[in-house]
Each structure stands twice: as C-alpha cells, then as structure tokens.
C-alpha cells in the first residue's frame, strides 16, 4: 500500500499535466510495481484523497485526480 502511494505521488509530481485519469495512475504505478492490481491502486488513491494529498476533479460526467495544491487550487 505505502509503495503504491509513493508511486502515485511520484507520478503526480513529475507529470506535466495537473490532472489525470485513474487509468493513467494505474499505468504509471504498474511501470514501477508491475504486479500491482487495479483494486489496491484504487485503495491507495482513495487513501491519498482522505489524507488530502490528492483531490478529485469532476466535470460531472468524468472524474480525474490531481495533486492538491497544483493546477486548479481554488474551487473554481
């Protein structure tokens, strides 16, 4: 779990984009930890949301993840 969280944060920090789809997170994590499955990655992403390190960004129809404090930090 902790290693997955680190991989997510590392990806989020070095990514050029400020928001990414879950799919992109999953691919990035699996590059570092090839045997990581989708479910634990989702759990780790949820934990990072709860720790307020990641944020959700939603248009209403689709949802992306972002690093808190990067890109859109205001709520609009």
């Amino acid at each position: 779990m902790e290693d997955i969280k680190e991989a997510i944060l590392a990806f989020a920090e070095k990514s050029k984009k400020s928001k990414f789809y879950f799919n992109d997170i999953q691919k990035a994590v699996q590059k570092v930890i090839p045997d990581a499955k989708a479910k634990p990655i989702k759990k780790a992403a949820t934990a990072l949301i709860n720790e307020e390190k990641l944020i959700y960004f939603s248009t209403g129809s689709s949802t992306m993840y972002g690093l808190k404090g990067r890109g859109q930090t205001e709520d609009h």
Partner: protein
Amino acid sequence: MAFEPNEEQKVLKYDELRIYTDEELNNYTDEELKEFKCKHDIPDMDELEKGPWPSFVADCKREALHRRNLADDRMMIDRDVVEDMLGQLQVSFDEGETHWKHGGIVGVFGYGGGVIGRYSDLQERFPSIAHFHTMRINQPASKFYSSDYLRCVCDLWEYRGSGMMNLHGSTGDIICIGTFTEQLEPIFYELGHVLQQDLGGSGSNLRTPACCIGKARCEWSCIDTQAMCYELTHYYQDELHRPAFPYKFKFKFDGCPNGCVASIARSDMSFIGTWKDDIRIDQEAVQAYIGGEFAPNAGAHAGKDWGKFDIEKEVINLCPTKCMWMEDGKLMIDNRECTRCMHCINTMPRALKPGVETGVSILFGAKAPILDGAQMSLLTIPFMECEPPYENIKEVVEKIWEWWPEEGKNRERLGELIQRQGVAKLLKVLGIPPMPQMVKEPRSNPYIFWKEEDVPGGWGRDINDYRSRHAI
C-alpha cells in the same frame, strides 16, 4: 422473503425535523403570483410559460416569489438565486451560448461523486448563482417515499440551497440544483446523519442504480427488483463514491420485459426479469376476454370504441414469433418459440401470466449517443437464477469490472469497448458460449473468430494442398 434493511431505519417525522412553519411554506397569494415580475427582463422565459404544457418557468416564478417573502435569516444562500438563474438563461437565449462553467474540485469529503460543480461565468451580473452546484441524492428503490421524507429534503434544500429540485434525473436521483460550496458539507452531514440518506453517483463511477416498481406493486415482476437494487447499491458503495472507472457505469433493473425503467436502453448492465417455463394460461379467462366480459389491456384503451375484442387480430397475429394459436376453443402457446415479449400477457392479464421458474436476463452495453450513436444493450446471458445475496450476479459484474477498466480507454463506455474488441471478446471475458441470436446481420458483427488451435493444420496449413481439392 421479507425485506431486511442493512442497517436499522429510523422513521422520519417531518414535525420533528421541519425547518419551516406552515405560514412560511404558504407565504404568497395567487394574486401576488399573478403580479410577480422577475428582477431581470426575461421575455423568452415568459414565452416558455405559454402553451398547454407545464413549464419549469412557472415553477421557478413560484419559488422566486416564495423566497422573496421569506425572512433573510431563513435562507443560507441568496434569495435571488432563482431570479438570477432565469436572468442568466435569458442571456444565453439572447446570445446562443451557455454561461455555466463546467467542472471543478467541489465535492464532499472522501466522495468522488454526488456533487457536480457548476459556476456562472457572469458572476458580477448574477452574483447569487456564482456557485451553482448540483447535488444528487440516491433515490430509494422504485422511488417510494413517505411525504415526511420528501418534506424534510425540500426544507433542507430551501434552507441551504436554491430550493429548485428535479424529481428525478435520468439516472433516477433526486436532483437538487444550485448551491454554494460552503453549503455542501452541512447538507451532506444532515442527509447522512439525520435523514439516513446517501448521495448518488456522478463522474467515472457506478451511477445510482435504479429499478422498476417490481414486486411491490406489479404482478408481472419476475424478480424482486427493489431487493436487488438495494443490495447491489450497498454492496458496491465503494464503486459509487470512489471513481476508478474509465467512465460512467449504470445498472438498471426491470422486473419483466415490459422494461418500465428502460434498462435495455439506459444501462451498461441491464437486468430484465424473465421466466424459463411456460406462460400460465387460464382458459376460462381467455374465454371471458373473447366473450367481452373482461376488457383487454385491463381497460387501458377503453377511451375509444375499438369494436369487439378479436383474439386472432389483437393477440395471436401480433405475437412476434407466431407461436400462438387456437385449438378446440383453447389458446395454445409453443413456449419454446416465445421470446417473452409480454404482448399477449399485457393484453389479457387475467388469462395469462409469466411462468413460475423466474430469473433474470442480463444485457450489456447500452448508452446514449456520445461517440458512435445510441446503442441498446446486447442480450448476453438469457437466464440466470436471481436470489439474494446474488452471488452469481456479483460474479458476472466483477468479470466485467476486471475487463472494462483495464482495457477501456478513458471516456469509453462498456458498449463501445464491446464494439471495439468484439462480442467474441465479451463472451470470452464472461466465459459463456455464443448464441446465433447475437448475430445482427452476417458480416457486420461476426461473433466467431477462428482460433489457430481450432483450424486443422493451423495458420501454417498448406494452402496448395487445400486448393488441389477446392479449385477456387
């Protein structure tokens, strides 16, 4: 089986939970309403109110007047929110452009759905709708409410939101339209802790599951749609609230092929109640329909004189598979040919009933037109047992949720993935054999692809040897 809630349910009493007095709720007269003028000039909105149909503009004006007459401290967001919304809509009509900004990081803590962020981009002209977020409330199964419950929700939304609501959104939720970011957490707290009410889904999530009225009121229901909807909603809470799908995913549950929630057209995974034994026939009742004692369709078309009921014309000849006939004064059905279209049962409900060996058909991949046009779900599993706790069904769900999130592109719905990778792939994922009915037309959607191990000699076989026996 009697229904058992997953947690103890309080009985909500409006009298104990209400925010507004009766005087506050009924705070304007019909004369005042007639005289009402919106603070913005809204000629096109006024136009929408004309004509025979009920108009949201008329409802909005009532709500605007209601808010004008409430005391300042009885609303947590601006009283003008309804009037500003109408004003901005008028501007959009004039300019042919929307002024709502899409999306943002609003939400309630820990949830990735249920709140949809919207902002006005004309905040100086319409300050009260600077934030205009939508909240989705997960409707109870089949939308059964007590009026106490509805009143509590309405009071809460009047107090902390715009008072404007939409019952219901296409997905089924109660939609509360327009509030400010600061109000989201207090509303969520109140809904969760006092009203025992969850938010619905939005974003790349499992969306709020919805079901027909089912066994609660409908004698045709082959499955307990409400129990199933409730169970899967609770069981997949995490998928509802924590987005990790490529796009939205919808479950809908119809108790029979009449499809009152139109699951076949509106859900990525459609559940439709069905039966595998024979249609039950009461021959005496058939005679009573023929003799005119019972009105066909339970009298639904009695408003006009259609002449004497003619079973040949109205039932037998309309059977899509032509599997019905009369023999020695008895109605006969070749049940092996029946496609469960429900027509005969709908026409003669007292004579015909679905069979008793009931279960569910599962279909995949419907969606509204986004990338490639609208699409109906594909009948993939014709029959499955359907009893709580629905382990067999959850297994199917999870096979799909291993495949689609892994292989689906961002913003690709399940139906589009099935189109892209083929029905054969879907069948492989589910581990089920193909059926001839899955071929819509030869060549356009072949469902069988040869695998090398199935071909004598494999891909490397000697074509010249084959041609020596088959000249062209």
